[in-house]
């Protein structure tokens, strides 16, 4: 080979067209922002019918997850995601899509070993590390409460 691996890596980097940030970032901003506005609409709605803010937020999450699940089922979520990038990834709808899409995809391997076992193949790490981080926080809080409380 007439090139070192290091030099080749630099060459590969040069020829690998980067994403067009001036397109991807505004699109992610707009679609992500829009999803949050839809969330705000539902939060206001649930507040209006007499819920407190925590309950309204929880219902909002459930509603957005439902919408995302339906869009995933109809094969539309990934069509939006193609344009939105992180705009559909970061909101809770992205988490729902990450759970629903493997559930649907792997049902050909059965409801137990396919849908059931592979449902959290993408979203699993989010729960594992979210809970783990909260757990660490909980230990710290508990220790503080022993001395401070």
């Amino acid at each position, binding site marked *: *080979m*007439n*090139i070192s*691996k*290091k030099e*080749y*890596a630099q*060459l*590969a980097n040069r*020829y*690998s*067209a*980067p*994403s067009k940030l001036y397109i991807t970032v505004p699109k992610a901003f707009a679609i992500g922002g829009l999803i949050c506005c839809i969330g705000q609409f539902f939060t206001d709605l649930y507040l209006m019918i007499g819920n407190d803010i925590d309950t309204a937020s929880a219902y909002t999450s459930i509603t957005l997850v439902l919408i995302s699940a339906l869009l*995933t*089922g109809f*094969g539309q*979520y*990934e069509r*939006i*995601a*193609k344009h*939105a*990038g*992180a705009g*559909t*990834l970061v909101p809770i709808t*992205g988490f729902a*899509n*990450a759970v*629903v*899409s*493997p559930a*649907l*995809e*792997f049902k*050909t391997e059965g409801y137990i070993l396919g849908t059931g076992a592979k449902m959290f193949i*993408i979203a699993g790490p989010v729960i594992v590390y979210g809970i783990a981080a909260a757990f660490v926080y909980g230990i710290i809080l508990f220790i503080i409460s022993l001395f401070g409380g």
Partner: protein
Amino acid sequence: MAKLISEGTIELDRGVSVYSCAAAVGKMESDGPLGNCFDYAAEGAELGLTTWEKAESTFQQYAFDIALRKGKLIKEDISFIFAGDLLNQCTGSAYGLRDTDISFIGLYGACSTMAESLAMASLFADMRLGEYFAAVTSSHFCSAERQFRFPINYGGVRPPTAQWTATGAGCCITSVAEKPPYVKRVTIGKITDMGIKDANNMGAAMAGAAYDTIKRHLLATKTTPDDYDVIYTGDLGQVGTDLMCELFRRDGIEIEPKHKDCGLMLYDREKQDVHAGGSGCGCSASVLCGHILPQIAEGKLHKVLFAATGALMSTTIVQQGESIPGISHLVEISDTL
């Protein structure tokens, strides 16, 4: 009798020809620039079947059946089948061809399998180990996506260097026959690791292998790119194409005017969202069987090199942080003996 003329390069001298060939593709491929040259174009990628894996096997079966029919052959005429695909344990081929009742040799060369299987089928023909030999391969966007990447309905982000796995299959039937296109020489590739670790940049991982194999073939045959009408590579895509041309440029060889990449020919990158181009065994297979070989048979092309390229990785190994080795096998095809 075939003889070794240089390291890895074998010359065939008994007039082995691609007696018949066929390509079966999905909808996106038939919507592309080569759309009307395929023997079978499906309405979608599922063929009315319950799983993507079944669909892929069926594409392979179609390509084989059509190639037989075009050559006015029956399956009992075939002595050996060489076949491979991208699915785990090559099940696309095993299930697609399980009812053929023909001696079966499974191959794994990732996306280089079309050239690998055609080389083997040509050598067997040269050795007269029967009369007709089949080389078959396939890939399927959906079955590859769920095995190598994400569920079909997942809204993940594909970087611009990612390639689109072609849905389709190709089949070549070789025989010693007085009829072009003839397989003149083959060069078997070496495993070439360029140190690329990004599974979304397969073109970069494979470009070194394509360079190495084509270079060795040119040296062994004492030819230059100008001696060929076209030098085809399998599925380097845009990134890999640029890289391979650059590697040749460093040796003072200008390959770009003669070079075409099947991954860039199969789709219209302006209109179809395939990022850096097509990939998968079915990409080079359908371009070879649907476009290149018929062009040679019609006398529109006279002498070409077909260097299919493959990335010899698995998702497990890539997750473990290993780099991605590439391979490229080459077949020289001509319209004269």
